[in-house]
């Protein structure tokens, strides 16, 4: 009997098998043939192990980064990267994360079906990462990894991902010229802020898209290249400040300190690459199953899709947003070094996607000035808020990587700080959040009618 219980407990507490079973359920619900179901289940299962392997590679590069940073500047250095922090966190919180994601999907479908928030969040990696953030924060507040925590976590994640697309929708109508798709990314709070900044301080008549912009920088769009380049600069500076003696005796076992620095930068990019491949395999079956089931259950659903859907609507704004964001992030880093706080290194992926998108939102409402101000304000958020999320991340507090986008940072900081008032506060807070969203939806009636009548006129 003991052996049977141990078998069952081992299955549920091995996240790789658990996500495989979730994929199997999805495939079975879609009535896929047996071989397809087996194939999909195995790929999802192995995908999780690929991701864990990538986490190992990333840690291999981040551990020396952390000790170099500590030695050179006497403070903790952190590179915000959702992929890195999630891959590392999943080793410990994998099961809770997978189950929260599953409950969150159900919550998303129920809210979209029964409230006026018709958004079905289809960006799989964001669902996985937000679930992981939720698991880490809830367990760090002292909650046990049990069924109640998973239901609360799923309510939080599912409600958050149903309501954040709504924040961006007024701006999405401006950018895409339609109301058919929504923004399903994790920088939505920042994008809506950038859109507001553009509206308040910009001038929509002078669009970024009228500028002739050099195209020569497009090689930076390959994330392996851009990550390696930026991380190489960071590692090289750290290596030079730490000096050859420290690195060659303590870290590289004799390899030249500059060669070692460049290899570590490449190792970071390699880990990132493997993690992406793992995430792709994990989601390969789960996302289509969710899409198929959700769109059947919510007939007039609006799909909330990943951030690049808006990139073609503002290619110059994207680049302007990225550069402004990265510069503000770099200046913020120097300010942190000067202030002696933990130092947040600008992550190139976060600044590209979130900074670029903020530029597009800012441009849509406020032209060139809107793009610059919008992406600068968004960059201040993603550069400084990581300092405030670290304390609520439990064991990940001292990790060399953390969450990067506004929709992890702001809800995470709020939820985590609620935790300092005890678990009753966390439970109450999450339930209140769900209720507020449901009640808010009742007041949306007029606006949806208005858009219907606008449609009729158009």
């Amino acid at each position, binding site marked *: 009997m003991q052996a049977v219980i141990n078998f069952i407990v081992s299955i549920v507490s091995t996240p790789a098998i658990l996500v495989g079973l979730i994929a199997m359920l999805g495939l079975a619900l879609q009535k896929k043939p047996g071989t397809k179901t087996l194939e999909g289940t195995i790929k999802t299962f192995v995908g999780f192990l690929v991701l864990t392997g990538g986490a190992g590679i990333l840690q291999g590069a981040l551990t020396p980064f952390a000790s170099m940073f500590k030695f050179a500047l006497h403070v903790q250095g952190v590179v915000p990267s959702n992929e890195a922090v999630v891959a590392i966190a999943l080793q410990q919180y994998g099961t809770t994360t997978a189950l929260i994601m599953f409950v969150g999907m159900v919550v998303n479908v129920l809210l979209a079906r029964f409230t006026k928030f018709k958004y079905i969040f*289809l*960006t*799989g*990696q*964001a669902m996985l990462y937000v679930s992981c953030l939720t698991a880490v924060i809830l367990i760090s507040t002292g909650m046990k990894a049990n069924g109640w925590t998973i239901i609360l976590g799923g309510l939080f994640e599912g409600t958050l991902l149903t309501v954040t697309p709504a924040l961006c929708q007024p701006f999405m109508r401006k950018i*895409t010229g339609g109301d*058919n*798709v929504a923004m*399903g*990314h994790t920088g939505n709070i920042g994008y809506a802020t950038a859109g507001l900044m553009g509206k308040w301080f910009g001038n929509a008549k002078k669009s970024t898209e009228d500028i002739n912009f050099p*195209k020569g920088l*497009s090689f930076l*769009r*390959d*994330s*392996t*290249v851009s990550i390696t380049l930026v991380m190489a600069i960071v590692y090289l500076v750290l290596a030079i400040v730490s000096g050859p003696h420290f690195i060659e005796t303590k870290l590289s076992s004799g390899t030249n300190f500059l060669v070692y620095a460049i290899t570590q930068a490449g190792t970071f990019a390699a880990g990132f*690459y493997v993690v*992406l491949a793992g*995430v*792709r395999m994990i*989601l390969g079956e789960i*996302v*289509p199953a969710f*899409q198929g089931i959700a769109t059947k259950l919510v007939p007039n659903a609006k799909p909330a*899709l*990943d*951030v*690049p*859907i808006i*990139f*073609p609507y503002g*290619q110059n704004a*994207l680049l302007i947003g990225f550069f402004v964001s990265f510069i503000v992030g770099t200046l913020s880093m120097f300010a942190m070094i000067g202030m002696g706080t933990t130092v947040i290194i600008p992550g190139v*992926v976060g600044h590209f996607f979130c900074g670029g998108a903020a530029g597009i939102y800012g441009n849509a409402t406020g032209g060139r000035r809107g793009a610059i101000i919008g992406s600068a304000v968004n960059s201040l958020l993603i550069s400084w808020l990581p300092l405030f999320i670290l304390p609520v991340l439990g064991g990940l507090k001292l990790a060399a990587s953390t969450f990067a986008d506004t929709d992890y940072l702001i809800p995470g900081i709020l939820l985590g700080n609620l935790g300092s008032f005890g678990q009753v506060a966390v439970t109450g807070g999450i339930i209140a959040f769900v209720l507020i969203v449901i009640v808010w939806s009742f007041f949306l009636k007029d606006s949806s009618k208005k858009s219907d009548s606008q449609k009729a006129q158009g």
Partner: protein
Amino acid sequence: MKIAAVCQSGLGSSFMIQMNIESVLKDEGVDTDNIEVTHFDTGGLNINAADYFFLGSDLAEQASDLPQERVFVLQSIIDKSELQEKINTLLDKEGIKHN
């Protein structure tokens, strides 16, 4: 035949294009037993990775060294009718029967 959808990190948008390609193939009544649809990031773009590539216009530059008859640049990655038109061109070229 292998069709690949490509985006910058190979996670969200390319996956969405892949699902749209699959649904267009289904709508067109195409026998998909010999057609594999996949998605990956721009780093994986090379001539051997697939027979046909679909990507958004903002990434056209990344695919400029591939044979252009195998690259389909989407002006809008969310416009299903544009995708359908391009898939039909592809199917006609390959001599694959469709509706």
